[in-house]
Structure formats: C-alpha cells, structure tokens
C-alpha cells in the first residue's frame, strides 16, 4: 500500500476531534506514520525519508508534536534509532513521539563549549550501574524533561575523543538538580544541571563504552541546520521591526542612521538571497558546510539591526521591557522590545557554534585551508592543560 493510502486509511479510522492529542499521536505512531523512514513497529514503515513530506502534507491541521518535544524528536530519536538496543527503541520512541515523555540534552559544560569533546562529567562503573558526577549547562527544557541524552567521560586515561560514553539519563533520578540559568535579558531560557552521584543502570547506556563521541556526532548531525530565519520576503524577517520603527517615527530619523539602515537593508537582502540560493542548492542535492556561513551572516545582521534600532529609539532605547527573573521557553525575537532583541541577539553568535568556530569550519571544510594546530588529539584527557 502506498504511504498516501495509508495516511488516508489512518485518517478514516481516527478522528482527531474525538480523541486526545496523546491518543491521536499514539495511533499515528502505531500506524507507522510518525517517521515513515523508521522501521515498522518503531513509528515507521521503512519507507524513504522523502515520503515523510507526503505524510506531513496530508496530516496538516491534525494535532502534532509541540515545541517542548523538539530535542526529543530532532536529536534523541535518531540517535536512539541508530545506536539503541531493541529494548531501548521499544521503550523510548513511542512516548517520545506522543509527548508523554519529554527529552532534553546534557552536552555542554562550563569548561567544554566549542570544545565539547573536552567535557569532564565523569561516569564510573559500579557493579551493574554507573555513577555520574558533573555539571552540564545551556540545557533547555531540563526543568520539565523526563529523560536526557547525556555524554560523559568514562576513561580519562585515553585521548579525549576516545574516553566518552553516551547515556540516557533519568531526569527524575536522585542527584539530578536543575537550576534555571539566568541570561543577560533577565530571563532563563536554559538551565544548569548538576549531577551528583546519579545512579544509572547499564541498560541506559546508548552505544558502546568509549563510543560516546561517535554517538554524539550522530546527535549533532541531526541538529537542524539553521539557515537563519528560513524563507522570508524582501524587507521581512529580521529587518522588519527596525523598518517599522523607522516608518512610524519620522522624528527619530537622522542622516547617519539612514545610511546605516540602507547599508544593512542591502546586506539583509543579499543575505536573504544567498540563503535562498543555498536552499536551492540543497534541494538540488548539493549539501555542504555552507549553512554554517549563513548562520554567521544572520547572527551579525540580528545584532547590528537590533543595535541600530536601540540607538534609533533614543530615549525609548534607554528603557527596557521587563527584567523579572522568569522562565521563558521561547526566543521571542519578533514580538519583544528592541532592547530585548539587542541583548538576546548577542547569543546568536555563541549558541549552536560560535562565529569563530563557524569561520574555522568555512575556511577548513569549504575553502580547504589547513586546520588549526591541535595539541589535544593524542594526549590522555587527564593530561590536557585546562
């Protein structure tokens, strides 16, 4: 039976208005329509990845996964599929898909940002279990997550990429403490997660001992390539708010700001077109690390445009919306005030690969220039300077 027919049959049998979102998603999983390229029995049909587009199109408007499931769907699920045991796949994929269980990721550490493989969170074998101690950071959703994908160091005596092991971590386990991490905007989008003597059974290990870096690469490759801001119209997207302010407030205009705004308008349009061209290339089957460069460009534009808007607003630019320390689960770049956007945009060139790392990637992988000299590849992790 064609995928298209399966979806129609599924819709004939399941009326989303007559069941809860969880029930509907569960039924969709069982019908193999969660990820059609996953195997049968694990939410898929063993079909080609392209068929997923057909499914999404036909199921448009029915209840789907929500934003809190993003890390589970985007990062945990493909990793579990690639490296999990049969038991793990059976156990975790369905509730991950239905949203009954929420996932987060425990990767970055205060001492391991760009250099993720240098991480220091230890996992030590204790009988059938592992005891985990360490600190993770920049974890979104940790405060409501049930499970985490976790990378730990199990062998400090070998070079850093070789001594890592990947786990599924129970976020409700003893010793897991989640603290909101306040940002310069005043809010907390992320968390710090302190792991103190956390006991994880060996059945929570994903992949082999010492194979953690390879597993983590799979996870990271599945992090969506951010081709900054997606499709937008000319004059839309990140430049729209400052244009609105410009048009609404003739009294704020100056010649200096006019020329700077025109330059940024041109840059934004050139960047938008380059992004569109890159998407065309990707569609035509010419993928590559060029996406890194577009992210670089959008970070810069976000920062410069929001900075210009704060300056344009003059006295209003001296004010701020709200400094209250509170959780925020979304990056509201378009609905919030210019001051918030100015501060939040500073993170764009750090999160998801710093601009410095992205320039390395472009120069080495796109341009073929020599790699930076590395002193850390063949030295036991414990002997590295830090």
């Amino acid at each position: 039976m064609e995928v298209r027919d399966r979806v129609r049959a599924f819709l004939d049998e399941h009326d989303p208005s007559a069941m809860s979102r969880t029930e509907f998603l569960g039924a969709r999983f069982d019908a193999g329509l969660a990820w059609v390229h996953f195997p049968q029995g694990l939410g898929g049909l063993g079909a080609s990845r392209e068929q997923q587009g057909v499914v999404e199109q036909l199921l448009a408007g029915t209840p789907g996964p929500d934003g809190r499931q993003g890390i589970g769907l985007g990062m945990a699920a493909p990793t579990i599929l690639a490296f999990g045991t049969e038991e793990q796949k059976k156990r975790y994929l369905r509730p991950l898909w239905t949203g009954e269980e929420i996932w987060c990721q425990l990767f970055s550490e205060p001492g391991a940002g760009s250099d993720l493989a240098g991480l220091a969170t230890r996992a030590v074998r204790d009988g059938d279990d592992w005891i985990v101690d360490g600190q993770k950071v920049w974890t979104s959703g940790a405060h409501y997550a049930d499970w985490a994908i976790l990378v730990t160091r199990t062998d400090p005596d070998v070079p850093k990429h070789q001594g890592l092991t990947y786990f599924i971590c129970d976020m409700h386990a003893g010793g897991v403490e989640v603290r909101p991490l306040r940002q310069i905007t005043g809010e907390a989008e992320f968390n710090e997660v302190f792991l103190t003597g956390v006991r994880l059974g060996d059945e929570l290990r994903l992949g082999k001992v010492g194979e953690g870096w390879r597993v983590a690469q799979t996870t990271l490759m599945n992090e969506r390539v951010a081709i900054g801001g997606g499709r937008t119209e000319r004059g839309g997207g990140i430049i729209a708010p400052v244009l609105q302010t410009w048009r609404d407030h003739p009294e704020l205009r100056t010649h200096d700001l006019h020329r700077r705004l025109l330059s940024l308008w041109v840059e934004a349009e050139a960047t938008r077109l380059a992004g569109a061209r890159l998407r065309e290339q990707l569609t035509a089957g010419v993928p590559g690390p060029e996406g890194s460069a577009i992210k670089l460009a959008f970070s810069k534009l976000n920062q410069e445009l929001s900075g210009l808007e704060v300056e344009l607003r003059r006295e209003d630019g001296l004010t701020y919306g709200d400094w209250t320390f509170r959780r925020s689960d979304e990056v509201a770049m378009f609905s919030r005030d210019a001051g918030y956007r100015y501060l939040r945009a500073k993170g764009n060139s750090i999160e998801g690969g710093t601009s410095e790392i992205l320039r390395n990637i472009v120069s080495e992988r796109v341009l073929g220039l020599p790699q930076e000299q590395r002193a850390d590849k063949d030295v036991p992790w414990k002997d590295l300077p830090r």
Partner: protein
Amino acid sequence: MSLLYSDLQEELRGSVRALLADRCPPSAVLARVETDTPYDLDLWRALTTEIGVAGLLIPESLGGAGATPGEAAVVLEELGRSCAPVPYLTSSVLATTLLLRSGTPAAEKLLADLASGASTAAVAVSLATSPYDVKSSGVTVTADGLTGTVTGVAGAEPADVVLVPADGKIHAVTDFTVHTQVSLDQTRPIATIELDSARSTRIAPDTEPLTYALSRTAALLASEQVGVAEWCFDTTLAYVKERKQFARPIGSYQAIKHRLADLWLDIAKARATARNAAEDDPDEITIAVAQAWTSPVTVHAAEECVQLHGGIGMTWEHPAHLYLKRAKADSIALGTQGDHQDTLAKAANIPATPHGTGH
C-alpha cells in the same frame, strides 16, 4: 596641553580605584540592580567625604577643590570601569557645570552644598538629549509653581534638588516625585520626574547654561566611556589568556589576537580623544570627535567582551552585561554618533550635498 595623565591625576585615580575595589565589586553592583535603591548612597558618601570627588569642578571659593576637567575625567574613567552606581556624572558634572555657568547667587548657594556632597542635584532633562537639539520641556510655570512631567532623567533618585528648564529659564526645585523607569542601563537607570505646583528658585534667566553644561558633560562622558571600554578590554584579555579550548588558551588563536590588537588600538585612540576633550576649554570639534569616536568603540568593546567570553558572557551572573548595557546607553546619552558627526560637518566645514539639508 598634554594628552598624558599628570602625577596628580594618577594619584587621584589610585584613591578612587582603591575605594571602588573595596566597596564596589561587580557582585555588589549586580546585587543592587535587583533592589529599589539603584544608587549606592554609602559608596557615594565615601567618595564625596573620603576623596572629595563631588567638588572637583567647583572653585575653592565656593567650597570645592578647584580642580580641572582633567581630574573629573579620571574619576569618570574609574567610575566607568566599575559601572559604579553613583550620581557623579549627573550631579557633580552636569548639574554642577550648569550652576557654575549660570553663576547667579542662587546657583552659588546650591554649589556650596554640592561641593561637600551634603546635597545632590539632577537636571530635569532626558539623558538622551543632544546638546545640539535641546527641546523645551513639558513643564509649565504658573503662579502656583511648576507643573509637569519630565522623562528619561538620570540620577534623579538620589537628588535633593532638581534643576528644571521651563518657560525659557532654569529653576531649582526640591519638591518633586521620582518614578524609576525600567531601564536598559541597570546601573544608571532613568526616571520620570513629576512636578505638581512645585515651588522653585530661579537659577538662570535663560537656558544657555543648560546647553553649555550638556556639551561639557558630553565631553567628559567620553572618559567614562573609555573606562567602560577598558574594563571590557582588560577583562577579556585576562579571560582569553586563561580560558582553554582544544588544549590551548583561546587567546593563542590568531583571529582573536588580531581582533584584540585592533580593539586595543581603537581604545588607545578613544583615550586620546577623551583626554583632548578633558582639557580646560575644549572647542566644539574636540567634543564632537571624542563622542563620535568613543561611543561606537565602547559599544564594540562591550560586545567583544560578551562574545569572547562565550556562554558565560551571556549569563546574568557575569558582570559583562552591566557594561554592555552602560555602553549602549552611553552611546545614546548626550547625542548619538550621528549628532556629533553632524556638528563636525558644520564646525569643520564639511558640508553635506549642495542639494542637501545644508546641515
């Protein structure tokens, strides 16, 4: 005219820096921004009584120290380095310069109190006011007194007296209400001042002293900005020497080295322009150059500070954001870079297009 610091100035800097190191660590500044008292009045008392910063610009005959703008500039550099929440710029520079310029007996009476730090003043204009475009305030003068609201005022909370431009004159008022606005710069918030039939004393018969004081304060603001930029640079430099990724200090990566070399040079230029603007009687071009150069450089220094600290620079607990917010607010305060460039165009005879506005 020297662009270097005098021995006296270095001595003054040493005193201020030592006091700030002791009583104004970043942790204290950060803790205060969450409270209802944005200004640190204990610190202010120490600065005024132990070092006597408040009276630097006031002649000895009026109870001050009779120092030069060069000394005030050094104090501002140090206060900028600490993002110190004290009303030095707003009271001891802006309000003081206004009062000195008006020179009326009423003004001199106020100056005596300001010199010792016994009293603090603010000027009831928006911090975003350009010295080249001073608009009339929304305050009206009737037989009952002064009535109206002024927004965007810096240094209002600790002020005992506010100097209010209204009806083409300047008035001193002690009966006013202050509402702190939620401000981008958390260490020098702006506020709304409300006057309701407030009694007042005439300080100046016209607003020329206000324009003059705004311009001279812009000149010295450049020194505060240099202090902000310096803290950002020094803190970043120390961090990149310390922070290792891929088993190397990140400061060993040439792209970062070259960015810091360029930034160092930009700040060296900023210091030169700020020292030049801190001379006794700077002309319009000198002030405009200092502001037009130093504002974007200081913002850039603060932005590089956040970027090169990586994730930690985006956290509330690291003080970098206090400097970013101060740098950005300072770039709007007392004229933007464009305002100062426009003045240059006129003063240095670089006219705009023949079909242009003629500015």
